[in-house]
C-alpha cells in the first residue's frame, strides 16, 4: 500500500508491505531533488554562504553555520574570536528551538487527534526568529556568518533585547508546554514524575501511556552525534553504551535506487540522529531515564525533542554571560579566498540531527560540495535485509496511521533530504 506522506517540508511516498496484518517492510521514496550541490559547483566559495541557507526554509541557519565552518576548515591558520563563536552558537540554538515548537504544535499534536495549534507554534518561534534577527538582520535566510566571524556588532542594548525575547519564550514554555518553573523541569530526572505535571507535553506523554503506544517506534537503539559545541558532545551510543572517539571519515553516503535521497551510514551501520541521539550522548538524566524505561520509542523521542527547548534556552542564558563585547566580531582571514585551493568539512547539530558539509575549493572556486542531512541518516535504508532506522521503527505495526506517527516522530524534512 502506497501512502503519500505530506507536510514534512515537502512530501515522501511510503510503500507499506504487510504480512499477516503487520507491516513487514516500508520503502521510502523521495520524488524530487533540487541539485544544490550541482548549483554550487563552479561558484565562488563565499557564494555558498548565500546559496546554502536556501537548502531548507526551516533549518537554513544550520546550513549557513555548516557552510561557514566547512569553508573555515579549508584555512590553516584562521582566527575566530570567542565572541563570534558564542554568537553563532546562540543563533543556532534559537533555530533549533523554533523548529521544535513548530514540530510539536503543527506536526505532532494533530497525529494524536488534537487540533493543530498554529498560534502556539508561531508565537514562540517568532520570538526566536527575532532573537536571530538581532544578529543576522533577518530570519529565515540570513548570511550573517562569514569566514572569520560574524558581520554584526553587538551592543548592550542588543543583549537586553535578546534576553527579553528569551524570557518571553521561557514564559511561554512554563505556561503551555510544561506548566512548572523551568528549574523543576530541567532538574527532573524521572520520566514518570513528568507525567504528573500539567501542560501540552505531559498531556501527550500521558496519552502515549494510556493508549498503549509505549512500545511504538523502537529501532536499533543506536545513536550518533557529530556536531559538538559548548553544549552538545560528539559521540555514539549503542544500547546506552557511549563512545566519544568517532570520526566523520567513517561516514559514507550511497545512492538509493528508488529515491532521490541518499543513504548515510557510519562504519556501514545505520544510526539515529537528532535530539534523542544528542541527549543519549550527552547523558541528559531525564532522557536517559526515559530511555531506560521506554527505550528508543516515540515517548523518548518526543520528550527529548521538546526537552531540548528548555535545555537550549537555559544554556543560551549561560552563554550570554560569557560574551565579551570588547572582542572583535570579525577577524579578516590572512589569505584571500581566491588564492586558496584546499578542502574541508564541518559537522553541526541541526534541529533534526547531525548535518555534515564537505567542500573542495580550487583558487577560491567550489570544485565539489557535498551535503549530508539529518533526515538522510534517519531515513536511510532500502533493503529488506538491512533496514534503516525509521524503517525498522515502523516494522511490526499494524496500521498505516500509527506508522505515520512513528515516521514523523523523527521530524522528517523532505527539502533537506532532497537538497
Amino acid at each position: 500500500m502506497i501512502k503519500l506522506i505530506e507536510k514534512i517540508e515537502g512530501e515522501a511516498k511510503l510503500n507499506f508491505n504487510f504480512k499477516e496484518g503487520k507491516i513487514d517492510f516500508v520503502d521510502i521514496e523521495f520524488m524530487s531533488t533540487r541539485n544544490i550541490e550541482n548549483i554550487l559547483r563552479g561558484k565562488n566559495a563565499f557564494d555558498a554562504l548565500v546559496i546554502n541557507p536556501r537548502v531548507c526554509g526551516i533549518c537554513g541557519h544550520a546550513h549557513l553555520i555548516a557552510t561557514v565552518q566547512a569553508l573555515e576548515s579549508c584555512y590553516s591558520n584562521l582566527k575566530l574570536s570567542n565572541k563570534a563563536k558564542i554568537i553563532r552558537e546562540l543563533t543556532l540554538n534559537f533555530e533549533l528551538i523554533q523548529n521544535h515548537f513548530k514540530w510539536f504544535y503543527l506536526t505532532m499534536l494533530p497525529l494524536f487527534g488534537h487540533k493543530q495549534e498554529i498560534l502556539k507554534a508561531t508565537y514562540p518561534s517568532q520570538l526566536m526568529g527575532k532573537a536571530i534577527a538581532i544578529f543576522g538582520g533577518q530570519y529565515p535566510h540570513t548570511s550573517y556568518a562569514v569566514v572569520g566571524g560574524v558581520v554584526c556588532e553587538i551592543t548592550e542594548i542588543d543583549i537586553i533585547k535578546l534576553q527579553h525575547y528569551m524570557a518571553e519564550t521561557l514564559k511561554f514554555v512554563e505556561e503551555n508546554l510544561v506548566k512548572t518553573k523551568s528549574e523543576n523541569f530541567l532538574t527532573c530526572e524521572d520520566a514518570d514524575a513528568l507525567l504528573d505535571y500539567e501542560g501540552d507535553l505531559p498531556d501527550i506523554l500521558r496519552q502515549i501511556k494510556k493508549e498503549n503506544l509505549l512500545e511504538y517506534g523502537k529501532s536499533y537503539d543506536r545513536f550518533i552525534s557529530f556536531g559538538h559545541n559548548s553544549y552538545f558532545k560528539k559521540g555514539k551510543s549503542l544500547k546506552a553504551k557511549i563512545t566519544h572517539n568517532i570520526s566523520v571519515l567513517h561516514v559514507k553516503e550511497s545512492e538509493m535506487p528508488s529515491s532521490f535521497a541518499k543513504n548515510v551510514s557510519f562504519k556501514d551501520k545505520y544510526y539515529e540522529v537528532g535530539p534523542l541521539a544528542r541527549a543519549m550522548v550527552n547523558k541528559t538524566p531525564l532522557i536517559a531515564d526515559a530511555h531506560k524505561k521506554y527505550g528508543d520509542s516515540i515517548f523518548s523521542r518526543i520528550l527529548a525533542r521538546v526537552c531540548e527547548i528548555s535545555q537550549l534556552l537555559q544554556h543560551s542564558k549561560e552563554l550570554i554571560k560569557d560574551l565579551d563585547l570588547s572582542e572583535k566580531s570579525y577577524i579578516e582571514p590572512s589569505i584571500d579566498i581566491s588564492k586558496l585551493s584546499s578542502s574541508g568539512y564541518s559537522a553541526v547539530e541541526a534541529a533534526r540531527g547531525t548535518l555534515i558539509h564537505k567542500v573542495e575549493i580550487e583558487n577560491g572556486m567550489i570544485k565539489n560540495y557535498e551535503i549530508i542531512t539529518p533526515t538522510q541518516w534517519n531515513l536511510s535504508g532500502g533493503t529488506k535485509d538491512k533496514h534503516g532506522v525509521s524503517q525498522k521503527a515502523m516494522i511490526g505495526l499494524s496500521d498505516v496511521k500509527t506508522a505515520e506517527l512513528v515516521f514523523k516522530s523523527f521530524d522528517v524534512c523532505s527539502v533537506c533530504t532532497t537538497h
Partner: protein
Amino acid sequence: MKKKMRVLWLSAIACNGNTHSFLNYPYMEQFLDDFEFIYHPVIDSEYSLEDIVSKEITCDILLIEGAISKEFKRADVSVVDIIEKYSKIVQKIVTVGTCATFGGIFRESGYEETSGLHFDKEEPLKTHKDLLDKTISVSGCPVHPEVLVNTLYAIKKSAALKLDNFLRPKEFYAYTVHNGCTRNEYFEYKVDNHRFGELEGCMFYDHGCQAPFTHGSCNKILWNEVNSKTRAGVPCMGCTEPTFPRQNLFSTKKNMAIPENLPVGVGKRVYLTLAGISKAFKIDRLEKKLIDD
C-alpha cells in the same frame, strides 16, 4: 459569518523558505480569521495534496512558491498542470518569492526549462500570457511576510494595486533596500571604510551590497519586526530582483574603481561628479566609531 477567502498554497521547486517566512507574520490569528487554506505545505487543511491534484476544489487565490518546470511534480502531477487547472478558477495568482517570480536559485536545479511563472530572470515568457492580468508577484528570497499578507488583504478588499514591470506591488517595491538603511550616511558622503563586524561603514563600495539598486522594503518594514540585513552588516544580495543570485556576492564589481551597478536612475557621469563633491566633506563623526569614542 464573514466569508473567508480560500487560498491554495502550492510549492513547486522550493526550499519552503517562503512558507516559514509567512509563519513569522505577527498577526496570524487575524489572518486565519479572514483566509483559509484549502492546502498549505505546513498548516492543516481540509484537503490533502492528492485531493488538490485529482479534484478541482473551489478556491479564490492561488499562491505559487518555488521555481516552475513541467518536469517537476507534486503528488505525481506536474506543477504546471496544477497551476493551469487552478489558474482558471481563481481570482488572482500570487507568485510568492523570487523562485516563483523569476526562477531564483532553483532556476539552476537542472529541470527542463525552469523559470518563474511569467519571467525567466528578466525575460518575459510567452507561456501563461493569458494569466498576466491575474498575477501579482511578491518577490524576495524569502518574501517578507507583511508584503505577502498585505497583498492578500489588498486582493480581499479588491484594492487596485499599482504594479511595476515585474508585476510587483509598487507600495513595497518602489523603494530600494538602501532606503532606511542605518548606514546611509556612509554611502552619501562616500566614506568607504567598511569592515565586517562593525556598526560603521557602507558595504556598497567593497562588499557587494546591492541595496541601492534592489527594489524592496527591507529597511522600511524591517524583518522579524527588529532588523534588516544591511543594518546588521550583511550586504544586500539583491534577492528580490530577477538577477538573483548574481555571482561573487560578497564583493563589488568595479570598472576603473567605479562600482559597475549604480543606484537606480543614477548615471555614471553624474555619480562621479556627486562622489567628487561628497568626498570633499570631511565629516569627523563618520570617520570615527559611532559609540566607543
